[in-house]
C-alpha cells in the first residue's frame, strides 16, 4: 500500500522536474561527444556569459590580486611600485596620527547608525503593516527620501545643519531646546551624519515590511485565541519569524555604515573629514590618501593597505554574523 504511491511519484518525476537531474550524468560522462545538442548549449551558454566573464576577470579578479600586492608596496602611481613588506601596516598602526581617529569615527558611526536604523525601520514597518487609513501615504512619505538622489539629500542636510540659519536649530529654538553646532563641532559631527543617514530609513522599513507581510496570519489568530497580548505576539511570533531578514539587515546595514563615504565627504566642512579627524571615516581616509587634493602625491600603496584593513573588517563582520546567526534566528528545520 505505501509503496504504490511512492512509485507513482517516481515515474512521474522526471518529466515534471528535469533541469537539475539531466545535467549531472552528462557532466560525469562525455557530454559533448554523445549529443550535439548539448555541445551547442555549452557554446551558447559561454557566448551569453562572455561579457559577464570578461568583466569579472578584468574588474573583480584582477583588481583583487593587484590591490593585495599594492598593499605591500610603496607606490605613488607614477614610478613603479616598490616592495616594502608590511611597512604600510606598521605605519598605519603606529605612526599615522589619522588612522586610529578614523577607526573611531567609523566605529562610532556603526554603533550609532545600525541599531537605530534597525529599530526605527522595524517600528515604522510594524506601524505601516496595520490596516488603517493613511498608512499607504505614510509609507510613500517614508520612502520618499530613499528615492531622492543621495547627493541632493546630503547637500540639503548640509544647509539644514547650518548653525545660524539652518532648519535644525530653528526647530530646536521653537521647542525651546538648546541649539547645537552640528557639523562644525567635533562631538556632534558624527551624530549629525547619523541623522542624515537615518533620514533614508525607508529602505530598511520596506525590507522589514516585506518580511512582515510574509508572516502567516493564522499564527496571529491562533495566538490571539490563546490569549496572547500584542506585546507577546510581537516578541514571541513576529520577531522570531522575521529573524532571518533581521540578520540580513544587520549585515547589510553594518556593511553600509562601514563604507560610509558620501556623507562625510560632502558634509564635513573641509571635505576631508573635519573638524579635526572627527568625520574622517575609513573610506574617506582611503580616498584622501589615494586621491589627494591637487599638488599632493597620491599614496596608492598606503591607501591599498587601508583598503585591506577595511575589507578584512567587513569579512569578519559577515562571517561572525553568519556564524552566530544560528543561535538567535528561527528556522523551519528545527520544528
Amino acid at each position: 500500500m505505501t509503496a504504490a504511491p511512492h512509485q507513482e511519484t517516481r515515474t512521474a518525476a522526471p518529466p515534471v522536474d528535469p533541469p537539475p537531474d539531466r545535467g549531472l550524468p552528462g557532466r560525469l560522462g562525455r557530454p559533448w561527444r554523445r549529443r550535439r545538442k548539448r555541445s551547442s548549449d555549452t557554446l551558447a551558454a559561454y557566448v551569453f556569459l562572455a561579457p559577464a566573464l570578461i568583466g569579472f576577470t578584468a574588474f573583480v579578479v584582477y583588481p583583487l590580486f593587484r590591490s593585495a600586492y599594492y598593499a605591500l608596496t610603496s607606490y605613488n602611481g607614477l614610478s613603479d611600485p616598490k616592495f616594502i613588506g608590511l611597512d604600510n601596516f606598521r605605519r598605519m598602526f603606529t605612526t599615522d596620527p589619522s588612522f586610529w581617529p578614523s577607526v573611531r569615527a567609523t566605529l562610532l558611526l556603526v554603533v550609532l547608525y545600525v541599531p537605530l536604523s534597525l529599530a526605527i525601520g522595524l517600528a515604522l514597518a510594524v506601524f505601516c503593516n496595520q490596516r488603517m487609513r493613511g498608512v499607504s501615504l505614510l509609507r510613500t512619505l517614508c520612502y520618499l527620501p530613499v528615492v531622492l538622489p543621495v547627493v541632493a539629500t546630503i547637500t540639503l542636510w548640509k544647509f539644514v545643519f547650518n548653525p545660524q540659519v539652518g532648519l535644525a536649530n530653528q526647530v530646536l529654538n521653537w521647542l525651546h531646546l538648546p541649539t547645537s553646532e552640528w557639523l562644525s563641532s567635533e562631538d556632534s559631527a558624527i551624530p549629525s551624519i547619523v541623522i542624515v543617514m537615518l533620514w533614508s530609513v525607508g529602505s530598511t522599513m520596506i525590507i522589514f515590511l516585506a518580511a512582515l507581510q510574509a508572516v502567516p496570519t493564522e499564527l496571529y489568530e491562533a495566538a490571539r485565541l490563546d490569549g496572547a497580548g500584542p506585546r507577546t505576539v510581537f516578541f514571541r511570533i513576529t520577531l522570531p519569524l522575521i529573524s532571518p531578514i533581521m540578520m540580513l539587515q544587520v549585515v547589510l546595514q553594518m556593511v553600509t555604515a562601514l563604507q560610509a563615504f558620501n556623507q562625510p565627504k560632502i558634509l564635513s566642512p573641509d571635505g576631508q573629514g573635519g573638524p579635526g579627524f572627527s568625520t574622517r571615516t575609513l573610506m574617506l581616509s582611503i580616498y584622501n590618501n589615494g586621491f589627494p587634493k591637487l599638488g599632493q602625491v597620491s599614496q596608492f600603496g598606503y591607501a591599498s593597505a587601508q583598503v585591506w584593513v577595511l575589507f578584512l573588517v567587513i569579512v569578519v563582520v559577515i562571517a561572525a554574523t553568519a556564524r552566530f546567526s544560528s543561535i538567535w534566528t528561527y528556522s523551519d528545520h528545527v520544528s
Partner: protein
Amino acid sequence: MILPILWMLTVALKGPSAVFEVPPRLLPHEFHFRNFVDGPKVIHFPRLLLNSVVITGLSVIGGVMTSMMAGYALARLRFPGRKVWFYVFVGSMLLPPVVGIIPLFQLFKDIGWYDTWLPLIVPAFLGGNPLFIFLARQYFLSIPHSIDEAAKVDGAGHVRIFVSVMLPITKPAWITMSILAFQMSWNDYLNPLIYLYSSQKWPLSVGMASFVSQFAGQTPDWNLYMATNLLFMLPPLAVFFVAQRYFIQGLSALGTVNQR
C-alpha cells in the same frame, strides 16, 4: 520626514539676502521664481543633466542587457560549470567595491580612459553588477521549461528564444533591474569623482556637490542651489511615481536574496 523637503522649497523661493536673515523666517516674504532660471544657469545644470543622462542611460542598458544574458545562460542552459559560475557571481556580491578601486583607477589611467566616461559605462556592459545576474537567474528559473522546448521545436535558436520569447516574459524582472541600475548610476558619486577631472564632463552628483563645498571661504548661494536641487530630484521622483510597484519590488528583492 517631509519637513526638510518643504523647507527646501521655501529656501528655493527666497531672495539671496533672505536666506541669511537672522532669525530665519519660515516663509519667504517675496517669491523669487527666477531662482529656477538663474540657479541652473550658475551651476551649469543643463550640461550636467545631459552628462548624467548619457552616463546613466548607457550604463542602465549595458548592465541590464549583460545581466539578462548571463542569467539566461545560468538558469536555462545546461553546460559544464553553470553551478560554479553561479556561485562565483554570488560570492562576488559580497566583495566590497572599494577593494578594486585603486588598481582599477590605475588600469583605466594606463589605457587612457582617465577623464572620460568610459570607466563609468564599460564595466556595466561587462556584467558590472552581480546582484542583477542573481536576480535575472532567479526570475528565469521560475519560467516553465516547456516554453523554451516549444520554441525549440518550432526551430528557434538560443538568440531567438532569448530575444523574442524570454525578454517579453521577463519584463517585470528587467524593469525592476533597470530602475535599480538607474538609481545606482544616478546616485553614484565616488566613481565620477575619481575618474572625471574636467568639470564639463561631470555628472549631476559631482557638479552639484562641488557647488556647495566652499572654495576660499565663499558661501554658496543656497537659494539658487536649492532651486536647482529640486530639478536634480525630479527625474528619480518621476521614475518613482510612474513605476512605484517595480521600485519597491526591486528594494524588497534585496531583502529576499538570502531566502533561497
